[in-house]
């Protein structure tokens, strides 16, 4: 029996129940007026898909003058042959600006350099639910492939008319169509064909696209398309934006979660030259011509706060989570700030039927709260005008933030424009618009553009965390290595990755919602990191119990061909089973499948029980995500996911007591640095016959259990809590 009978993507944890966005109305004549003449191809998806569920009227589909939100992307080919792609996806370092450019360049037969991606500007692009869940590659990329393929078809029709020949005689390359393959002198450019045109076409998923085996631009290691702007410091993040007359804002924060403002005195701040105090209920802050003056002004404000709830601490949290579980299973629930549902009697979990088990094993694993720690903290520049609010901010959900702004300021969404410059990372943590709303309130109050950049301390304290978890695993196994039963309960962090990929006749996998003291949200790969940690460490424990090789034990119970293939590829490239170098070395292996990606990671550690030090010396991940779109960028994402995963595996941990974070600084919250990095190797399995899955998340799941298992191999010490060695190895 399996309580999660469908392996669906867990909805991301931020505001999944937010009101539907207003329909995007685009008058096509206006569109051409803005962009210039040319050919425009719009990609249509069923409304439910565009909306991310909930059937809604399509309206304005096909012909007619207005296009609606069920258009997910469009491509415009201008009179100069330039190609502009409009999508609501946001670039946060996962390199989709490059991969989506490749998709369009591939189908349109144009150089990468002639494609411009216009992303995540709510006034210019079609509605998009958000950039998360590794969905850009499996969903948006095929749509752009189809729209671009259709655009090529339109241009070929135009060229056939131009040359008065049958379309089949034509060839197309580098934005030019040739009358025949043999005679390259008779040619017409895309720009010549689109001159004076106002041609639109809508396409859907019936449009044929180039198979991956024939890709020439997609599937290759195209460099980051705007890389030069980053190595020169020219790229403008939200926090770099500037407008004439712009002021800098700073918000007065409470003393703790749940502390309510009792009284506030802003007189001293108001008296400071150049300072304007913004006071609207419990929203209090200051704006000033420079950021330091704004900070001084807020420091000059005195406020009294109610005593915060005592709450659990990072030491008592796991007991708290188990004691506060609500009835029934669930997907982990939506993002929530403290409180949570009322605790109820725990539903009695079915006892694992050990059946024919020769041995049983029961263990508990825990996962601490960790912080996303994007290097660019939350930041926004807001420009309030009576008829329009424009906000530049780093978010993964521009349309969701537009809704937040409209609600917070009590104006229609049509009067709000959110623009997301390519952002200093998110890792699942930037779904909401806290800084955007704060900057907008201040801009409205002072009538000038206001920029607001959260400090690192604010980011650590008032943003969100990856949920902590307690995971109980009870298993049964026969002496020949056959798994017979499996009971797996996750408290708080959710269901992703909860389903074991191993064949087990009798299994129960339950995600329990509990009360949570901290604001938690999605984090790269959601709960899959913790669930894979618990499962893959437990598998290692069972293998040791049985005195079987951990890889052999896994393969004995594993039917999935793709997962077997990455395990075997990783083991081979790593030298699994080879003799270890002498002295404190250990090997570990772990793997799983998540978001369409198949992962196996091997790690080698060097551990010294006497000093308590552990160094991860080497780590290798084999990965299969279907047809590879950009091998070098894929490797980069896998390396990065492994490094990020290493932080949560070894030392990242949010500390808190009395409803307040007690380590809100990078000096106290340890993230991986140069000296922590092992030699990282990647093995890519290119499955050209399979659709490409996103790859920004899945490769994070293998490293923590692989390292934990390697530490056991080296020392005999079994670590079951993430982070495993925040204060070194304790014998």
């Amino acid at each position, binding site marked *: 029996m399996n309580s999660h009978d469908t392996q669906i993507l867990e909805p991301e944890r931020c505001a999944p129940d937010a009101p539907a966005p207003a329909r995007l109305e685009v008058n096509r004549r206006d569109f051409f007026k803005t962009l210039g003449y040319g050919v425009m191809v719009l990609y249509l998806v069923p409304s439910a898909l565009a909306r991310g569920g909930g059937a809604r009227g399509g309206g304005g589909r096909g012909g007619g003058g207005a296009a609606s939100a069920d258009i997910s992307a469009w491509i415009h080919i201008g009179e100069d042959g330039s190609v502009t792609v409009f999508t609501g996806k946001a670039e946060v*370092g996962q390199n989709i600006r490059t991969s989506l450019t490749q998709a369009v360049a591939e189908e349109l037969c144009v150089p990468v350099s002639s494609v411009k991606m216009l992303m995540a500007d709510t006034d210019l692009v079609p509605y998009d639910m958000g950039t998360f869940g590794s969905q850009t590659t499996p969903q948006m990329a095929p749509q752009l492939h189809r729209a671009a393929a259709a655009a090529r078809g339109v241009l070929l029709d135009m060229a056939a008319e131009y040359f008065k020949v049958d379309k089949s005689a034509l060839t197309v390359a580098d934005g030019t169509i040739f009358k025949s393959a043999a005679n390259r002198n008779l040619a017409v450019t895309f720009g010549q064909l689109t001159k004076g045109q106002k041609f639109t076409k809508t396409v859907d998923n019936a449009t044929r696209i180039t198979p991956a085996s024939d890709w020439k631009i997609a599937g290759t290691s195209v460099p980051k398309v705007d*890389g030069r702007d980053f190595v020169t410091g020219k790229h403008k993040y939200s926090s770099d934006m500037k407008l004439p007359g712009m002021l800098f804002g700073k918000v007065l924060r409470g003393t703790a979660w749940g502390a309510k403002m009792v009284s506030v005195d802003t007189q001293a701040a108001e008296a400071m030259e150049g300072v304007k105090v913004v006071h609207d209920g419990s929203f209090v802050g200051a704006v000033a011509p420079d*950021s330091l003056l704004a900070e001084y002004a807020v420091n000059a404000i005195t406020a009294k706060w109610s005593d915060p709830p005592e709450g659990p601490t990072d030491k008592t949290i796991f007991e708290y989570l188990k004691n506060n579980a609500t009835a029934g299973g669930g997907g982990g629930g939506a993002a929530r700030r403290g409180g949570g549902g009322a605790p109820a009697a725990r539903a009695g979990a079915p006892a694992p039927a050990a059946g024919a088990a020769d041995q049983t094993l029961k263990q508990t694993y825990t996962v601490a709260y960790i912080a996303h720690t994007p*290097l660019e903290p939350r930041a926004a520049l807001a420009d309030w005008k009576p008829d329009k609010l424009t906000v530049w901010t780093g978010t993964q959900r521009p349309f969701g933030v537009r809704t937040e702004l409209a609600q917070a300021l009590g104006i229609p969404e049509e009067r709000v424009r959110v623009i997301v410059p390519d952002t200093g990372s998110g890792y699942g943590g930037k779904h909401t618009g806290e800084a955007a709303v704060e900057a907008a309130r201040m801009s409205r109050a002072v009538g000038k553009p206001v920029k607001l950049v959260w400090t690192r301390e604010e980011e650590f304290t008032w943003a969100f965390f990856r949920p902590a978890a307690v995971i109980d695993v009870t298993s049964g196994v026969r002496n020949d290595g056959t798994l017979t039963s499996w009971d797996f309960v996750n408290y708080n962090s959710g269901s992703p990755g909860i389903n074991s990929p191993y064949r087990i006749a009798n299994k129960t996998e339950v995600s329990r919602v509990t009360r949570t003291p901290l604001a938690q949200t999605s984090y790269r790969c959601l709960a899959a990191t913790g669930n894979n940690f618990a499962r893959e460490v437990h598998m290692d424990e069972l293998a040791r119990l049985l005195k079987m090789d951990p890889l052999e034990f896994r393969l004995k119970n594993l039917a999935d061909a793709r997962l077997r293939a990455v395990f075997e590829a990783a083991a081979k490239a790593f030298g699994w089973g080879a003799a270890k170098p002498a002295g404190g070395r250990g090997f570990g292996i772990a793997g799983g499948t998540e978001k369409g990606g198949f992962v196996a990671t091997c790690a080698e550690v060097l551990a010294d029980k006497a000093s308590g030090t552990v160094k991860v010396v080497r780590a290798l991940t084999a990965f299969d995500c279907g047809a590879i779109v950009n091998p070098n960028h894929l490797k980069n994402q896998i390396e*990065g996911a492994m490094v990020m995963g290493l932080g949560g595996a070894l030392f990242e941990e949010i500390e808190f007591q009395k409803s307040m974070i007690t380590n809100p600084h*990078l000096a106290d919250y340890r993230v991986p640095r*140069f000296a922590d990095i092992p030699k*990282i190797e990647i093995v890519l399995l290119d499955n050209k016959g399979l659709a490409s899955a996103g790859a920004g998340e899945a490769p994070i799941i293998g490293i923590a259990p692989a390292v934990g298992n390697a530490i056991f191999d080296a020392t005999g010490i079994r670590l079951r809590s993430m982070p495993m060695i925040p204060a070194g190895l304790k014998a």
Partner: protein
Amino acid sequence: MERRDLFMPRVKELFVNGKTVPVDVDGERSLLSVLREDLDLTGAKYGCGEGECGACTVLLDGNPIRSCRTTAGQVGKRQITTIESLEQNGRLHPLQEAFLKEDSMQCGYCTSGMIMSGYALLQKSRDPSEAEIIRSMGGNICRCGVYQRIIAAIKDGAQALQNK
């Protein structure tokens, strides 16, 4: 009431990227905020304000410093070098080229600071060992985790400078 002129004398000029630049700022302000807010040199980033992440790295007389923890008043007549000065006449510095070649970035927010720290290292050590690179870059965080590629880029950059 008072302004904060009381806190520290005002700074009237800075020496940035080979030029004398007139400013009029409170000496208490961080060099980072003056570069970014007053001089529109936004290549150096705010990452922590605590000197822990290196995103704000610029050079002061050739030495890498955390501009978030350096006040404008402390700078004096020393030469400030920022990422904006590395590209000369449309040509990237070899280290910038190397960062592109090795794809040593994801979100790019740490990149300016990484390049400035690496640039300072290459000014002092023409052929740094891996251990030396790791040691001298220890104050810079890349949260996207592309450290291995940054090390490769610094090695490439060193090679390119030697071949020049």
